[in-house]
């Protein structure tokens, strides 16, 4: 009985243990392998589409150029999209002198945008409508497209004339003899000639340039620069697997890229949001992680890099393989902190009506974010291509959407991360974030572009800052450069100090016509002809005065360092170019810096960097090797003298510009200092003299 009892007890215990064990394992967290997380960002696939030509026929059948109006316009509002700035470039604001005046833009400009506004860099001027003399014609629309059309994305300017008539459809009899839309100034003959739009074709909006990751700007450039506007958009797809170029230069469609139903294989076209690479093609060197910095691509210097030395790259500067960055080992931080965090352009410069991104409202009203945004379908039909942006000098371009972008303070709570800063709010109000977060640009950028005297290529004398040597020479040492500072208005209407690069132009101005002298007119004045290889031949009197002993005029000699040189070219402009009243001018143009941002560790934190007698805020940055003295200086469209002459060349003097700021430790009011020190020294002298007399006289002491 006892044995039975014991056995029973053991059995019960064993069963209990088994049950407890089962229960434990049943409740224990599963140790089954978790599905590996896909780190690749999800991407919404664009539906497969057929590529259609201008007649709506599938290009695979017609072999005609792709019409984005027909192809993309099936679902997206093509006219709405191409009415935006990337396509119009200011064309929409043409013929509006009041608008120009309101923005302080000289009336000789045609528009306030890139299409029609003078810039010291190219020194070309779009002709006004209704001009009567070829002497008033510098550049026609086709001229503009030949030079600028590679970046400016088709549609708008490239498709319609100033009266919104499609190019190639206007009868010859209806065309004005000097209509800028139908004429160009021939580069070889210098004559104003008609442009054959039927031969060149026109370019519709190039959606591929921004929405196909493998977009080929180089191939597009070849087409645009040679006047083959018709096939420019097809050229953008060369290399994508859809379009190939034959040896004879013609383009054909690769059949294997298309499905049987005529649509393009989605993985080949890969339509997507604009990538960093898409924007970089035109705007400035940008990459997620790139140790070979190539700011010259497809024969062009990327614009943002050219103007301010912008390198938007997540790689550390110290990792740079090419080019030769001096002291790079000391720079163990990324070229741009935002790039290193994976931010791409559209994170801040988004389509304002994209419901997936923040919609910033009028800050003067109470609504900062509108939760009930646009319907996704409505957005996809009409995505606003006037992208969110800031408003920084020079105010040359888009007149709309100022301060709509995601700015620094939309992501960063500046108040919290700047607790170390005395008078924090005052600093944050008076200084743009970039002022401390771009302490130095570690690359080169334009310094001066002088069209006032031309090299024997017939073009300007260009100098760079931040580099010792040629920008294409891999051995050139890149020292980088320090910014200079100017006041600008921010989104709250406050004037703040912001870092910039300065590009100085030395140009002739036609005082009677109230416009800059055209480059072809300066060519007429300086040169007597051209060699068979295209080299321009200087007039003997020019060589005599400007040339060195060997009779050549090299970059160091091509400057106005003597009044006689100015007088000579002035007389030549009068004699050969018929300009009665030419005036040499210095124009200083600031280009604001927004990229190449460093993080907190590298940002300026030491007070005396700004608050001292040698404050960086008044850094006398060198403007050029030489600049003529006693000539008018223009800054921001106004005659303001911002140049002081040092022994080694002209320097920027921003004292007048920053006169609205009192920078403790740097600013001085002369009479306050004078009066103050008179009181102090007067007291000391009184004490010394009085004390000495008391000792000498031996009176009451």
């Amino acid at each position, binding site marked *: 009985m006892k044995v039975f009892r014991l056995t029973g007890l053991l059995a019960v215990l064993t069963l209990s243990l088994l049950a407890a064990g089962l229960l434990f394992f049943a409740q224990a967290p599963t140790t089954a392998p978790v599905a590996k997380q896909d780190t690749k960002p999800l991407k919404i696939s664009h539906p497969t589409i057929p590529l259609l030509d201008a007649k709506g026929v599938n290009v695979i059948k017609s072999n005609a150029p792709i019409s984005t109006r027909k192809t993309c316009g099936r679902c997206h509002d093509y006219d709405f999209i191409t009415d935006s700035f990337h396509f119009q470039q200011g064309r929409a604001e043409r013929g509006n002198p009041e608008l120009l005046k309101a923005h302080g833009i000289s009336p000789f400009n045609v528009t306030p945008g890139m299409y029609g506004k003078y810039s010291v860099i190219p020194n070309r001027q779009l002709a006004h409508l209704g001009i009567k003399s070829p002497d008033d014609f510098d550049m026609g629309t086709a001229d503009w497209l030949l030079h600028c059309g590679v970046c400016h994305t088709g549609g708008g300017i490239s498709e319609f004339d100033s009266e919104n008539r499609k190019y190639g459809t206007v009868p010859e009899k209806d065309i004005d003899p000097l209509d800028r839309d139908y004429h160009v100034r021939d580069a070889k003959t210098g004559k104003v000639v008609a442009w054959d739009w039927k031969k060149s074709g026109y370019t519709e909006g190039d959606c591929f340039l921004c929405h196909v990751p493998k977009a080929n700007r180089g191939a597009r450039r070849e087409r645009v620069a040679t006047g083959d506007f018709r096939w420019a958009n097809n050229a953008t797809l060369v290399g994508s697997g859809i379009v190939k170029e034959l040896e004879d230069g013609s383009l054909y469609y690769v059949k294997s890229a298309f499905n049987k139903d005529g649509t393009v294989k989605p993985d080949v076209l890969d339509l997507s949001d604009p990538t960093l690479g898409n924007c970089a093609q035109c705007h400035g060197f940008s990459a997620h992680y790139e140790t070979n910095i190539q700011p010259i691509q497809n024969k062009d210097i990327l614009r943002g890099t050219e103007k301010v030395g912008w390198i938007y790259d997540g790689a550390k500067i110290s990792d740079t393989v090419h080019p030769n960055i001096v002291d790079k080992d000391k720079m163990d931080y990324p070229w741009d902190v935002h790039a290193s965090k994976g931010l791409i352009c559209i994170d801040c410069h988004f389509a304002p009506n994209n419901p997936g991104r923040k919609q910033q409202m009028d800050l003067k009203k109470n609504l900062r974010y509108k939760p009930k945004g646009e319907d996704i379908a409505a957005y996809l039909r009409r995505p606003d291509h006037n992208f969110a942006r800031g408003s920084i000098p020079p105010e040359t371009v888009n007149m709309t959407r100022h301060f709509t972008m995601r700015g620094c303070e939309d992501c960063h709570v500046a108040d919290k991360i700047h607790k170390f800063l005395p008078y924090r709010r005052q600093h944050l109000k008076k200084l743009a974030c970039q002022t401390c977060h771009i302490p130095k640009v570690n690359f080169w950028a334009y310094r001066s572009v002088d069209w006032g005297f031309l090299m024997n290529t017939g073009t300007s004398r260009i100098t760079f800052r931040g580099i010792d040597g040629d920008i294409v020479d891999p051995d050139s040492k890149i020292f980088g450069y320090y910014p200079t500072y100017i006041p600008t208005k921010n989104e709250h209407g406050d004037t703040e100090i912001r870092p910039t690069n300065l590009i100085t132009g030395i140009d002739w101005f036609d005082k009677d016509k109230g416009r800059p002298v055209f480059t072809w007119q300066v060519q007429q004045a300086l040169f007597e002809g051209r060699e068979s290889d295209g080299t321009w031949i200087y007039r003997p009197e020019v060589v005599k005065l400007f040339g060195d002993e060997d009779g050549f005029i090299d970059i160091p000699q091509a400057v106005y360092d003597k009044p006689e040189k100015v007088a000579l070219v002035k007389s030549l402009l009068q004699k050969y170019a018929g300009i009665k009243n030419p005036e040499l001018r210095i124009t200083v143009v600031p280009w604001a810096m927004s990229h190449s941002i460093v993080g907190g560790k590298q940002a300026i934190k030491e*007070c005396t960097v700004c608050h001292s007698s040698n404050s960086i805020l008044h850094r006398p940055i060198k403007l050029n090797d030489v600049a003529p003295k006693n000539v008018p200086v223009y800054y921001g469209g106004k005659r303001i003298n911002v140049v002081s002459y040092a022994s080694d060349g002209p320097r920027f003097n921003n004292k007048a510009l920053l006169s609205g700021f009192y920078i403790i430790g740097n600013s001085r*009011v002369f009479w306050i200092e004078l009066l103050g020190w008179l009181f102090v020294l007067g007291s000391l002298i009184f004490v010394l003299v009085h*004390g000495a007399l008391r000792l000498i006289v031996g009176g009451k002491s």
Partner: protein
Amino acid sequence: MTPLEPMYSLHERIWHWLQALAMILLILTGFSMHYAGRFTIFGGMKGDVLWHSWIGFFLILNALLGIFYHFTADKYHHYIPRMDDFTTGAIKQIKFYLFGIFKGEKHPMETDPRKKLNSLQKLTYLGLLGVLIPFQIVTGVMMWGATRWPEAFAKVGGMKVLAPAHTLGAYLFLAFIIVHVYLTTTGNTPFALLRAMITGYQTPKSERE
């Protein structure tokens, strides 16, 4: 030997020396900011800025306590000039400093516990306590409060007006301190006045004569 007579109470002396210390530190930190990068008092401009603000507020507090004390202890009248202080009194005192002192003449207004300040001192302190200190306090507080009261700050012209005005005041303070320290040597002996402000006692008028 006649015992020393009490001249300055403990409260007065503490008030005076705290005020002096605060003013000297304010001048030093102020000029370290004005001439930033050349010298520093509290380890750098940031330290100088922070200490300048705190010391400034301490000075205000000390000034208020001083006013409270002088009124409640009925000592404010020492600082109130009479009409003749502006005219004959001041002229006499100036004449003494410019001429009489070299001839060993008797001080025209010997001080005692009931009349602690001569006419020139009364006028100087009227300017200092009635004008210069309030002026420095107002301009300094407005600069400190620029982000707290931006409208008021902007109305008076912002930093462009306030900072130079405050700087001019600082120069005047420095000039005052130089002369003030020097004039402490014009007592019965070179350190008599200084000793009085430290110990609180001075030689009686009868002993000085």
